């Protein structure tokens, strides 16, 4: 439950601070007599706010759903006992969802209050630093919006995550029931068709945007919608896309029994792992996309400028990309909490299996290595997917924006093909960050796993 409070507080605070920051920047621009009221900039800012907060809320929702699945797994016996006595599965689930609403509300409130205080201090600090008095009060009714959205999504996520309550039978209280080795991925034909349609449509628009970009920079607008649609399709169809990637990464781990065990565990609950992996994918994709788009843009501008580009422009682009990456990193933190949850759930649900392994002679060191490999499995699959997607999206954005910019102004205009420039530093930062994420996420589940005493697990038979 602590995880749910944490992620709802983070995502609310993120929303509140972004709204305050964009509001402040808009006020700053209004106060500037030379720029005045810039409608376009305000629109771009608010759009980015919605996009970034949307990603954060989505990832937080996935984390909460997984948290509640963890809670249900830990409470299966108790739920079964209540079912045995006569409680209905539905009432049990409603109760859990209500806890979700409470947890979400607490988290949202903490995030709202904390972030509002930060915003008030921040505005004061910014005024002081800029030597201005931008008459901007961060406390406004708009700030409640992210809090309400977060509380409601937490409620919905708790409901979604506690689906397994419905499958707990009263018999499980009596013990002796054998769990199915693999959860069958629910057949969600409707969702998968929608996901596929969005993917195809998005890809077509991306292609169209790139083609139109060869004659006009406005191609980037078409590409933008193509990107949004295809990425939404990807998130929606996570259970279609991620399992093959997970399988591929798992096969790299080798053939030893412990490696195979680690590789199989992510595929045991494909829906859960895919959803969590896509949370990490989102963060990595967005960061890579900004990095690649800006590096590619700079490369073209430099070529067009005859080997150099204005320092000013270069600095603006760098600042923009740094700010965007920092903002996306918030979602990555939330995804980290989720990864801890996912692995913990895996360990909690496999207590008996871990006990059996210990009995048969698996050492604690081997168990630790297995949990670490499970964590690495998800993060490697997510990072690789995110890097590839980010490079594709970033290149598509740069190509459709700059396809019509002539590199050599002296020659007759011809379409420019932008080469995707992959800047090494952001990629290294991403790899380092996901490595740290893997190590940190494995700590708690490892401790839980190595604490399983063989006979304790056998006694639960």
């Amino acid at each position, binding site marked *: 439950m602590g995880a749910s409070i944490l992620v709802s507080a983070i995502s609310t605070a993120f929303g509140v601070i972004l709204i305050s920051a964009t509001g402040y920047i808009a006020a700053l621009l209004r106060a500037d007599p030379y720029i005045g009221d810039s409608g376009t900039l305000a629109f771009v800012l608010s759009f980015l706010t919605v996009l970034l907060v949307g990603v954060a809320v989505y990832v937080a929702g996935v984390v909460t759903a997984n948290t509640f699945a963890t809670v249900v797994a830990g409470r299966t016996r108790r739920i079964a006992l209540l079912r045995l006595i006569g409680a209905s599965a539905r009432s049990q689930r409603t109760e859990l969802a209500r806890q979700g609403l409470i947890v979400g509300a607490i988290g949202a409130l903490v995030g709202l209050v904390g972030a509002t205080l930060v915003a008030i201090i921040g505005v004061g600090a910014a005024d002081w630093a800029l030597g201005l008095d931008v008459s901007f009060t961060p406390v406004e009714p708009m700030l409640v919006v992210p809090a309400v959205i977060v509380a409601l999504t937490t409620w919905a996520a708790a409901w979604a995550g506690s689906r397994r309550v419905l499958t707990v039978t009263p018999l499980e209280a009596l013990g002796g029931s054998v769990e199915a*080795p693999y959860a069958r991925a629910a057949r969600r034909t409707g969702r998968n068709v929608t996901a596929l349609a969005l993917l195809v449509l998005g890809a077509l628009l991306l292609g169209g945007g790139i083609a139109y970009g060869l004659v006009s920079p406005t191609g980037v607008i078409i590409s933008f919608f193509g990107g949004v649609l295809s990425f939404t399709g990807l998130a929606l169809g996570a259970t279609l896309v991620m399992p093959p990637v997970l399988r591929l990464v798992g096969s790299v781990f080798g053939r030893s029994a*412990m490696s195979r065990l680690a590789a199989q565990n992510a595929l045991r609950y494909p829906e859960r792992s895919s959803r969590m992996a896509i949370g990490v994918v989102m963060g990595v994709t967005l960061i890579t996309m900004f990095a690649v788009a800006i590096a590619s843009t700079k490369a073209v501008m430099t070529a067009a400028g005859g080997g150099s580009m204005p320092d000013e422009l270069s600095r603006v682009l760098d600042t923009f990309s740094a700010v965007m990456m920092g903002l996306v990193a918030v979602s990555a933190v939330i995804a980290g909490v989720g990864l801890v949850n996912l692995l913990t759930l895996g360990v909690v649900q496999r207590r008996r299996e871990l006990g059996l392994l*210990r*009995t048969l*002679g698996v050492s604690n060191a081997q168990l630790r290595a297995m949990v670490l490999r499970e964590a690495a499995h998800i993060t490697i699959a997510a990072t690789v997917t995110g890097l590839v997607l980010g490079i594709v999206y970033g290149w598509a954005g740069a190509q459709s924006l700059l396809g019509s910019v002539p590199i050599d102004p002296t020659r007759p205009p011809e379409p420019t093909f932008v080469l995707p420039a992959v800047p090494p530093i952001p990629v290294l930062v991403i790899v380092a960050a996901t490595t740290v994420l893997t190590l940190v996420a494995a700590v708690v589940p490892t401790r839980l796993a190595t604490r399983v005493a063989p*006979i304790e697990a056998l006694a639960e*038979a």
Partner: protein
Amino acid sequence: MHISSSELGLAARVSRLTKTYGSGAGAVRALDDVAVGIRRGEFTAIMGASGSGKSTLMHIMAGLDAPTSGSVWIGDTDITGLGDRELTVLRRRRVGFVFQSFNLVPTLDVIGNITLPFDLDDRRPSAIERARIDMLVETLGLGSRLTHRPHELSGGQQQRVAIARALATAPDLLFADEPTGNLDSRTGREVLALLRAASREHGQSIAMVTHDPIAASHADRVIYLGDGRVVADHRGQSAEQIAAFMLAAEQGAVA
């Protein structure tokens, strides 16, 4: 003078073994000064009612639980002072396990489960071990199932796989904990016959914990536990004799 277990012809033994759970007024003495040896090459059944201490005895003998006092030997190794790491390796190399249920790792196929102990040691089975595994697979009729996952097997087949895994390393001692508890009586008889054959034909030492007189009647020797003590030790018992003894012990306890 110290006499080693192997000189006594024992695969495992315990001496002055006591196990107490809890402390103070709520303390429960699960095992009370037990001394017993499991003879090499024999199929020994450990019988007793629920709470007699038979499972605790097995757990301690197998290095899964630590005694409160007393000593435990597997072969000539005194395991009482061993740490978790040594006990883990000991279980992996020198002890085999067959449980009532949930014997197999669900994500590994049949051959993966059978060779798991070697895999954990980071080595491939030697030629001799390979031959033994092939022989086990054939005798247990698992040849066509090697790539199946446990959930695709019947309860009896799962127990066969567990037996194959337990025998693959030719352990000093095979522990079986109610191995027929989840099986229908015909399949249960087959499993018991397999255990008996392993003991008779290949000299495998087996200790089987059970409360089922029919299962115990397949053993060469039956040790009875009651209230944490060894109350009797018989050889070549029929199911009727075992049941009669159990009943008499129960009635004696009531009287």
